[in-house]
C-alpha cells in the first residue's frame, strides 16, 4: 500500500522510466528511514512499551539498536532536517 502502489499508478511513470521511479522510491524510503524526528519518536515508543511491560527486553533492545544505528547514520549524512518541527529553542 501507500508509497509503491501510489507511484506505480502514476500515468506518467512509463514516460519517466523505471530507473527514475526506482530512485524516487529509494529516496523516499531512505528519507523516511533516516528522518531523525521519526527515529526519535520510535525510540520513545520503545521506551514506553518497555516500561509498560508490553514488549520483551530483547525485542526492545534489538529494535533500539537498529534505530540508533540509523540515527547516527542520519546525523553523519548531515541531512538538513528541521528539528522537531521548525525552530530550535
Amino acid at each position: 500500500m501507500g508509497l509503491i502502489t501510489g507511484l506505480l499508478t502514476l500515468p506518467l511513470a512509463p514516460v519517466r522510466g523505471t530507473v527514475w521511479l526506482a530512485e524516487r522510491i529509494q529516496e523516499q524510503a531512505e528519507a523516511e528511514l533516516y528522518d531523525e524526528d521519526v527515529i526519535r519518536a520510535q525510540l520513545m515508543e520503545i521506551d514506553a512499551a518497555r516500561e509498560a511491560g508490553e514488549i520483551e527486553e530483547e525485542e526492545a533492545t534489538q529494535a533500539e539498536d537498529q534505530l540508533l544505528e540509523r540515527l547516527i547514520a542520519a546525523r553523519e549524512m548531515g541531512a538538513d532536517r528541521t528539528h522537531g518541527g521548525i525552530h530550535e529553542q
Partner: protein
Amino acid sequence: MTAVYVYGVVPAAEKVDVEAPGVEASKEGVRRIAHGELAALVSDVEAGPMVAARGLRAHWRVLEEAVATATVLPVRFGTVMESEDAVVDQFLAPRHDRLVALLAELSGKVQLSVKAFYDEERLMRGVVDESVAVARLRERVRQRPKAATYYDRIQLGELVAGEVEHARERDGAMVVDRLEPLAVAARLEPLGTPDAAVSAAFLVERSRVDEFSEAVARLSDEIKGEMRVRYIGPLPPYSFTEEQEAVGAWA
C-alpha cells in the same frame, strides 16, 4: 592494541566506584586516571571500530552510575585516546584549571530534565480556534479535491506550524518561569519531535531535588489536559557544561 575510552571527568577527591562494565569488556573495567585535582573515568578498549548502539548504552550506564553520587563532567560519546599518557597530556593537563573550576561550580548539583508533549488533538483544536486564517484555509482545502490543494496545504501547514511555534514559545517560557526559582540555572533545549512542546534542563542542588519534584508534579497536574510531562534525572550536567569561562556561565 589497546586504547583508552573516556567517559567523563570527576574531582580527584571524589571516590567514584563504577561497577558498570564499560563500552567493551576489559580486565579492569571502568577506572580513574588522576592528574592534579581531576580524575578521568576511562576503560580500556581495542583500537578499531566500535558497535555504536552497544557502546552508547554502556557509555550511558557508566555516567548514570557516576552521577548518582559524584559530580561528573560528561565527555562526548565515542571519545577514544591513544593511551593513559595521552589522557593526561592532551586532556587533563592542558585544561586542568578550567575543568576544576567547572566542577566546583557544579558541585552538589544535578541536571533534571522536564519535557512536555502536546496532545495532538487539543493542540490542533486550539490552533483552529485561535486562528481565523487557519480555519478558513482548512475549509478551503477540505472543499477541493486533494490533487488541487498541494500548495494550499503547504500554506496551511506553514500557518499551523507558526501557531505551534507560538504555543511552544509560550509554554516553554511558562515551564521555565515556574521551575527556575527552584533551580540554580535553566536552559531550553532543541525539540526532538513534532509533538514536542517543551524541553527544559534544570541544574538543581541535590538537596532540593524533592522540592523541585513536587513543583513538577503540581505543574504536570495543571497542564495534563493539554500536555503530558516527562521528568527525568538525575543526569550529568550536560546542558551546563560549557566549554568557556566557568565563571558566570549561567549567571
